[in-house]
């Protein structure tokens, strides 16, 4: 007799090619949100070196004796990979902010008919801002 067919996982994941703007926005926002909270934890951990610094601990950085905080931060900042990661973080943050603004507008019921355009705008702006900030981020990095 009658029994129905469940198309299973295909349904949930197999259709990403057919996603619309709003669905991509949702996925990107999620992704960037998780990155940001992850970063926030790391960030506080790094900043915790201030406690050591306040206790007078010092470390060597580029042949100089500096306090632990300054040393940690400048040490990290001195690494190329950290700079690159920072650019990535900026991109992530900028997208999350821009799309966050878009979402806040959506929540307030403003400009809903342009939701797809505003998503594309967020993407483009994110790209632009990221590229534009590369010089600032990479300036003076000790290669």
């Amino acid at each position: 007799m009658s029994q129905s067919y469940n198309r299973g996982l295909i349904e949930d994941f197999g259709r990403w090619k057919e996603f619309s703007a709003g669905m991509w926005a949702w996925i990107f926002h999620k992704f960037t949100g998780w990155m940001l909270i992850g970063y926030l934890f790391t960030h506080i951990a790094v900043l915790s070196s201030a406690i050591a610094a306040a206790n007078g601990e010092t470390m060597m950085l580029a042949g100089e004796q500096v306090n632990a905080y300054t040393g940690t931060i400048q040490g990290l900042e001195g690494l190329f990979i950290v700079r690159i990661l920072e650019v990535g973080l900026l991109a992530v943050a900028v997208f999350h902010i821009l799309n966050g603004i878009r979402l806040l507008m959506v929540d307030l019921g403003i400009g809903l008919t342009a939701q797809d355009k505003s998503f594309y705008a967020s993407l483009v702006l994110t790209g632009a801002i990221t590229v534009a900030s590369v010089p600032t981020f990479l300036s003076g990095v000790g290669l």
Partner: protein
Amino acid sequence: MAERYSSFTPGGTAWFLQRVTAAFLIVVLAFHFFLLHFVNHAAEVTFMGTQQRMDHIGYFLTMVLFLVAGAFHGVNGVYNALVNQGLSGTPKKVVLAVLSLAGLALVAQGTYVALVMAEMI
């Protein structure tokens, strides 16, 4: 009909706070990024400089609030995302507890660090 939904808790408050913190974060995060990457370059950050900034009570409070808001926003966001993926029952309670603890720890540690920077401890 509607009764089968009656055991759930309304979720409006968290939703609302997520938006309020987001609105707040836009401003502070932009300020924060700008200040620490464009005005002062991150690579030139020193303990002294940080201490100086933190000495302003306004800046200090903003940063603490930034942290609280960010922690809530991020942790609540993660929680929502998991719940939306169909988390329920005991795992859901566990996740809530773990995330809350992590969030609290983050805020506590962050606040402690800030107090140190501000030379209040």
